[in-house]
């Protein structure tokens, strides 16, 4: 029997539930406090598998919503947009009724690299042509072309950008460009322009541990490159599951 409690509890927690990604991230980090253990050597040029982010102790303070403890140095253009933004996570947290976070408001794709701040695992699938990254959050997919092609001459702007990759020794270097301006760099409301250029360096340090060095460059938004390093653990027993952002949007409707 569906009791009236169902409506009561769902309504009463809708705002909390929907806007509590930070909390989920904190849980993720709290549960992932173990230091990486030495494992077997990494297979050569192979990132295949399901991975989950592991925050370092220092990162637990901020990784729920942004990449570094220190804020990036913003241009006046980006600073004005940042100050006008109303994030739902991080130190400037707003209620869902108020937030204009594009992910929370309308389920827009999070963008690159913000997708890593959505606290769910990802999977690499490799083919001779490309490395496919399947992010659990809202079925987000990136195709990293590794067949030697360059970026298109006139890239169509997209949420996740156009990605090409090549191996530099043991590191897969992924270059992403061609962004629209509909996404934020993080959950704190830091901004980017269509000139955003992201380089990710994926290094599988051993079988079970992956290190990703990320550099964000954007001459219109960032005074200097914003650099971070993320860490992931292999989760061989996990599968990528379904997670539809539209479920969250349904909650949001009730708030209006």
């Amino acid at each position, binding site marked *: *029997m*569906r*009791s*009236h*409690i*169902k*409506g*009561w*509890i*769902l*309504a*009463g*927690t*809708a*705002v*909390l*539930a*929907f*806007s*509590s990604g*930070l*909390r*989920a991230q*904190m*849980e*993720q980090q*709290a*549960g*992932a406090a173990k230091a990486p253990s030495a494992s077997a050597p990494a297979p050569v040029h192979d990132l295949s598998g399901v991975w*989950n982010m592991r925050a370092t102790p220092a990162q637990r303070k901020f990784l729920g919503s942004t990449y570094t403890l220190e804020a990036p140095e913003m241009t006046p253009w980006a600073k004005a947009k940042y100050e006008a933004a109303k994030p*739902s*996570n991080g130190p400037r*947290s*707003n*209620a*869902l*009724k108020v937030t204009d976070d594009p992910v929370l408001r309308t389920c827009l794709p999070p963008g690159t690299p913000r997708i890593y701040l959505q606290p*769910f695992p990802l999977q690499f699938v490799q083919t001779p042509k490309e490395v496919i990254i399947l992010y*659990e959050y809202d079925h987000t997919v990136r195709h990293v072309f590794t067949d030697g092609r360059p970026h298109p001459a006139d890239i169509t702007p997209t949420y996740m950008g156009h990605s090409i990759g090549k191996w530099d020794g043991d590191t897969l270097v992924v270059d992403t460009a061609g962004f629209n301006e509909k996404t934020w760099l993080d959950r704190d409301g830091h901004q980017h322009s269509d000139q955003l250029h992201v380089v990710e360096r994926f290094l599988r340090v051993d079988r079970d541990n992956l290190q990703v060095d990320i550099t964000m460059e954007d001459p219109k938004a960032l005074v200097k490159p914003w650099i971070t390093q993320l860490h992931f653990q292999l989760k061989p027993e*996990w599968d990528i*599951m*379904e*997670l*539809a952002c539209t*479920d*969250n949007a*349904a*909650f949001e*409707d*009730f*708030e209006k």
Partner: protein
Amino acid sequence: MKSKRMAFFALMVGFMTLASVAFAHHGTANYDTSKTVTVKGAVSDFQFINPHVLIAMDGKDESGKLQKWQGELTSPNRLSRAGWTKSSVKPGDTLTISGYPAKSGSPEIWIQKVVLGSGEELSTGGGN
């Protein structure tokens, strides 16, 4: 599916009319993480849904007052990886939950610990 959704909407609209104050709540700021409350009682509803799993209980906290409590966990995916299923908790089950209370004093809890009537503790760590 559609009728279920419509019923869901109707319930929500009904609730909003009666208790719109609940919608002032927001995120972690709503909870007082410096305090812990423990509630024991009977489950009235269990929703294994996105974005977060919800438990409703008719329960008593340390004060002994019987109230309708609402508890929030993490996402179904995370709890699945920690061993939960949609049947891990059922209406009528006796449960003891502990977690952070709402700052407002309303009977809401961000659940950190779940102990079944059998004494078995369910992980709330999200599967990490």
